[in-house]
């Protein structure tokens, strides 16, 4: 999983039938410099959310095939919000 900061949500008017009541977040994934530089991020991605993340919150996102695992039927999801991060501990070396 990767860390990411939520910057907004995405609303769909027309959607694939496998999305039912979806909540989609717009999130900026963290890269190696994000811990020290709070403005450094990777390009934004859209994340499927079932935990209720808010704007500005840091989340842990699961990408790839595993992002589709939590769904009972095949769903086209490649980024899933797996955790709402309360805090991180990372001592500077």
């Amino acid at each position, binding site marked *: *999983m990767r860390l990411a900061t939520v910057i907004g949500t995405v609303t769909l008017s027309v959607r694939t039938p496998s999305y039912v009541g979806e909540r989609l977040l717009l999130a900026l994934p963290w890269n190696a410099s994000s811990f020290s530089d709070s403005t450094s991020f990777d390009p934004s991605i859209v994340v499927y959310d079932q935990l209720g993340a808010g704007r500005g919150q840091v989340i842990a996102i699961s990408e790839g095939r595993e992002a589709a*695992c939590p769904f009972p039927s095949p769903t086209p999801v490649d980024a899933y919000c797996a955790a*709402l*991060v309360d805090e*991180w501990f990372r001592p500077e070396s």
Partner: protein
Amino acid sequence: MRTARIEGHVTATVKHPSLSGWRLLIAQPVESTGRPDGPPQIVLDPLGTAIGQNVLISSDGSEARKILNDESSPARWSVIGIIDPERALAL
């Protein structure tokens, strides 16, 4: 598999149920000279690693699901070994 350095951990109260009770560590993938290579990953740790250790992490999702014993888990990365500090080449 990637070589990585354990740099810290995250805590999350609200998360997918499969992750409940598991240590979630911040692992920075490094290349052979020790330089960071790619984004830091949040990995499962079934082995009990410490901050500063160089480890081997795997992106095999089926291994993560086996560790958590939950087929619906979105977890993907896990620590599968600790690199011996005496014999490591350049890390």
